[in-house]
């Protein structure tokens, strides 16, 4: 098991508030890792540090042996990291197809080829029939899927998913879960997912990292983590006990 994405002692404060403190964890190649924790635990900040939106105050981010800490978001994407945004950011004035073409252009020499790739991604995520709609006309679950489609179209080696299950109906969620499982199985796509919906995390990830107040309080298999008293207390408390 080699670490594909390795986070070491990552720290970030915003005007004195320590959003992420000394966080370390690894994501092995080809695995699906869940990043969980209560609201405000620093999960999204962690994502933004990995994806280059913020520069870390301290610590390193290593991807496939290369240090990518402090790179710009576009450089990190080119290095093979795809991401979605918790608050979706579709290209509202463009059609669904055009949204995904923009992503697909990263790994395509021409627009024609990108169009072909966009088509297969949209079909996979069940959005092909919506291709000519403006992104602004989509429902929220559809927009979440569009986020995933756009990120997938960049053909990433690792996909960072920020709460893509939130607000989905159970059946929609099952579809999404099977899409990720299949991607992971067929192309060995590594996934790091922030998720509040425990059912999705538990069924997808082999490993779960738990954050609270910006620090890692537990890491391990879903079973181990759910039995960890610290986790139960801070987070799963209300649900599990």
């Amino acid at each position, binding site marked *: 098991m080699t670490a594909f994405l390795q986070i070491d002692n990552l720290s970030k404060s915003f005007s004195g508030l320590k959003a992420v403190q000394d966080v370390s964890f690894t994501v092995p190649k080809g695995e699906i890792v869940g990043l969980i924790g209560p609201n405000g635990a620093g999960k999204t900040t962690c994502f933004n540090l990995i*994806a280059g*939106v913020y520069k870390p105050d301290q610590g390193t981010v290593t991807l496939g042996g290369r240090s990518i800490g402090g790179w*710009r*978001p*576009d450089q990190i*994407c*080119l290095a093979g990291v795809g*991401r979605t*945004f918790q608050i979706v*950011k*579709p*290209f*509202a*004035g*463009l059609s669904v197809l*055009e949204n995904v*073409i*923009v*992503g697909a*252009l*990263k790994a395509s020499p*021409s*627009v024609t080829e990108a*169009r072909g790739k966009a*088509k297969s991604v949209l079909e996979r995520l069940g959005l092909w029939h919506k291709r*000519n709609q403006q992104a602004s006309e989509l429902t929220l679950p559809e927009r979440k899927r569009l986020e995933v489609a*756009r*990120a997938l179209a*960049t053909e990433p080696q690792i996909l960072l998913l920020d709460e893509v299950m939130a607000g989905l109906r159970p059946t929609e969620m099952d579809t999404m879960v099977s899409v990720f499982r299949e991607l992971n199985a067929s192309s060995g796509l590594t996934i790091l997912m922030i998720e509040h919906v425990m059912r999705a995390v538990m069924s997808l990830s082999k490993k779960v990292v738990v954050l609270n107040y910006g620090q890692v309080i537990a890491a391990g298999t879903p079973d181990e983590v759910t039995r960890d008293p610290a986790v139960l207390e801070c987070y799963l408390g209300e649900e599990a006990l």
Partner: protein
Amino acid sequence: MIRHLLDGVPRRGIALLLVLLAILLAAPYLVGGYVLSVLFLILYFAYVGQAWNIMMGFAGQLSLGHSLYVGLGAYAAAALYVHFGISPWIGLGASIIISGFAGAVIGFLAFRFGVSGVYFAILTIAFAEFARIGFDHFAWVSGSSGLFLPVENYTENDFWNLRGSPAMFYYLMLAMTVAAFLLCHLLLKSRVGYYWLAIRESPEAAQALGINIFKYKMYAVVLSAAMTSLAGVVFAFYYNNLFPEQIFHISRSIELILGPIIGGVGTLVGPLVGAFLLTALAEGLRELMLQIGVEVPGVKQVFYGFCLLWVVMFLPDGVWPPLARLLGLHKTERED
């Protein structure tokens, strides 16, 4: 090439454009000098509107200082001609380089430090004003007393030195407008076009998809500036006089963005439609005032102001999108 050009464009649209082009080509044989000069103005505004639209309509960067590029382009080519007798066809190289460089400087200053939106617009105005005051004191181009190109009576058109009849300028402007239209059409179908639209819609998401937004915004500014400077060259040789106070003035910048805003920002046809509507209406108003015998400066601009107010309030996407739907020319479904 041609197939690529026509790809995804509705047939009726092509037919209408060809009819329009035929009419415009025949116009010098059909209409008098006055109408031709109005048509020239329309094409001029359509061209610069198209160039501005690359920045605002495609890449989402609001420039309110495009008179800077018109002025730099005009002065560069005119000064080279007046001082050294260099043909504008060579001088336009200098125009493109100087304007492109000015655009690059503004872009660099703004985009490096995340100056965007309204602040970017203000920075562009500041540079245009800077140039206006600077050129007022720039002795080599005669400062505020104005730079004049030699005017003689020509028995035949001297295309190499751009000395000649209004019809010659008209055809030149028409060619430029058509070229700009085709260029923008191709750009929108290319990688850079997709990237621009993505940046316009959401810079953060664009960046997350691997787009170097600084680089692509710079492309937009430099291309738009260079294209705009060519309009300046034609302006200089058509009107034969240049005053910093006029050419760099902020009202010129606003005048040249009214077309695309009224026509429809970000659309290909918008700048054309807007330039036509605005110029035709303004000339109509001028005629009307002449008939009544009122001659007050400022009336045309007040009229522009109300047009702008009306469009911004009631047709936020401009005239073209609803007009296109009316004509059945809106984006059709692609058959894949």
